[in-house]
């Protein structure tokens, strides 16, 4: 559904994106992960047909994005990374304005979303908080029930409750067979809803991973705090892959079957045990740190 081929866009500063290629299949949720300035928004601008790429192509629904940008907006729901709306309008005026710009007659979906996000859209946008603007931006992207969603950091500015509402909506849209590309720098949300994730660094895609595969990796990392120094020694001296964090805290990696791991722990005075369930973050950090050295 979304296809990016050797997309290159170099800015005057020398920054940009270089030979970015990936596909998002129909009905798939694709996470686009990278720190600020890595090139996520630049890629999205090309998908929206805003910018002229130096090289390469982007396609949505088999149509080239720059040439068919207006036409493609019929099937795209877009949430920009920056909430720069027509801020002299009230929230409701802006929602109506965007609906009219699309010739959208049916407003039931819009009104349902307003309710779901518990949004009071009567105030001037100029006076709204970032979170409120973000809600309006999300409603604009979702109100015409598009086939493809392009969402640039969709949860930024939302409180945890609203982040959950948003995640639920994403899951529903996925169920309905929609194609979603969402950029983010939050691992958790990407890991929760995405099927695949592409990691971008300094304008280059460093890896594209299947989340299901990532989650099924059966090596787990535990952070254990112990009561006695003797127990710390027992663990460090064991066959497991370990790492001392401080005098009484140890990081240990174990994999299935866990029997041996548990029997060792049963002999120790364990004060606390946490599972580090951040495989995506670990992977992300791995790619980022490797380049820094």
């Amino acid at each position: 559904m979304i296809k990016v081929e050797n997309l290159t866009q170099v800015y005057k500063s020398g920054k940009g994106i270089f030979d970015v290629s990936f596909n998002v299949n129909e009905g798939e949720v694709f996470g686009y992960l990278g720190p600020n300035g890595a090139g996520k928004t630049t890629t999205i601008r090309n998908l929206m047909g805003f910018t002229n790429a130096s090289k390469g192509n982007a396609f949505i629904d088999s149509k080239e994005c720059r040439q068919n940008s207006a036409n493609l907006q019929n099937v795209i729901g877009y949430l920009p990374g920056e909430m720069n709306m027509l801020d002299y309008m009230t929230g409701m005026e802006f929602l109506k304005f965007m609906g009219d710009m699309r010739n959208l007659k049916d407003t039931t979906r819009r009104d349902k979303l307003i309710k779901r996000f518990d949004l009071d859209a009567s105030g001037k946008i100029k006076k709204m908080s970032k979170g409120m603007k973000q809600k309006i931006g999300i409603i604009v992207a979702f109100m015409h029930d598009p086939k493809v969603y392009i969402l640039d950091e969709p949860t930024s500015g939302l409180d945890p409750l609203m982040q959950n509402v948003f995640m639920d909506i994403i899951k529903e849209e996925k169920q309905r067979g929609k194609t979603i590309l969402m950029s983010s720098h939050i691992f958790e949300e990407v890991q929760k809803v995405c099927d695949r994730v592409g990691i971008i660094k300094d304008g280059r895609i460093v890896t594209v991973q299947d989340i299901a595969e990532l989650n099924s990796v059966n090596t787990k990392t535990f952070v254990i705090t112990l009561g006695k120094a003797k127990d710390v020694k027992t663990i460090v001296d064991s066959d497991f892959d370990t790492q001392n964090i401080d005098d009484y805290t140890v990081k240990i990696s174990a994999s299935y079957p866990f029997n041996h791991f548990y029997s060792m722990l049963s002999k120790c005075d364990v004060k606390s045990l946490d599972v580090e369930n951040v495989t995506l973050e670990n992977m992300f950090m791995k790619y980022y740190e490797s380049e820094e050295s």
Partner: protein
Amino acid sequence: MNKTLFKSNIKSNWGVFAFIVGMLMIYVSTSISMFDPESADAMDAMFAMLPEGMIKAFGFISLGTDLTTYLAGYLYGFILIVFPIIYTIIVANNLVARHVDRGSMAYLLATPNTRVRVGTTQAVYLVGSIAALMIIVTSALVGMSEAMFAGHLEIGKFLVLNLVTLLVLITVAGISFLASCIFSDAKLSLAFGAGIPIAFVMFKMVADLSEKVEFFKYFSLYTLLDTDKILNDSSYVLTISLILVVASVVLYSLGVSIFNKKSLAI
């Protein structure tokens, strides 16, 4: 053309529009009320005492004895150039460059409207609102003249003068619009979109000052607004109208085309 966008332009720019119309109304009404068919000769005599250069610099070139030439001399040399241009400078910048600079253009283009359609709507709004401005001013002038000095105004000639003035304003606004389409930075757009029209005013003022620096008139579009010739020479009117229409079409379509082709960091 997109009606929704057009309406939102009215909403976001009506304040500037109302302010400029208000200012012009003050000048329009005072200029008519100051006209006295009996003492027009006395006014001329008074102006004769002032240095010629100073009178010319402010565009009060020939305050005729009849109402038509009096208004032409009093308003169309300076006031009806400067105030509408303030309006077009601000609005032309708002219509494109500001949306791009602030990023709100992303929302406009995230709808199924081509850039050509968005650009054309903005151009039509700019031209249409200048026309509305001139229609209001002209109607007020004709209405007040008829009410206070019935039969004194040569309405036909006066309407031609206003039409040519409108064409000049539309053309100059076309330069600001082009700048607004070229530059993604609103500051740069304003620098050129305001700088060139203001330079035109300056050059015209300098050129009128003395014959030694008269050549400055070739650097100003306002030189075409020669009220004497417009009121009396119909072939001149026809020629410059044609030039202005062609120049406008070129400026606005070039603006829309550049906006359509450029890379937007929004």
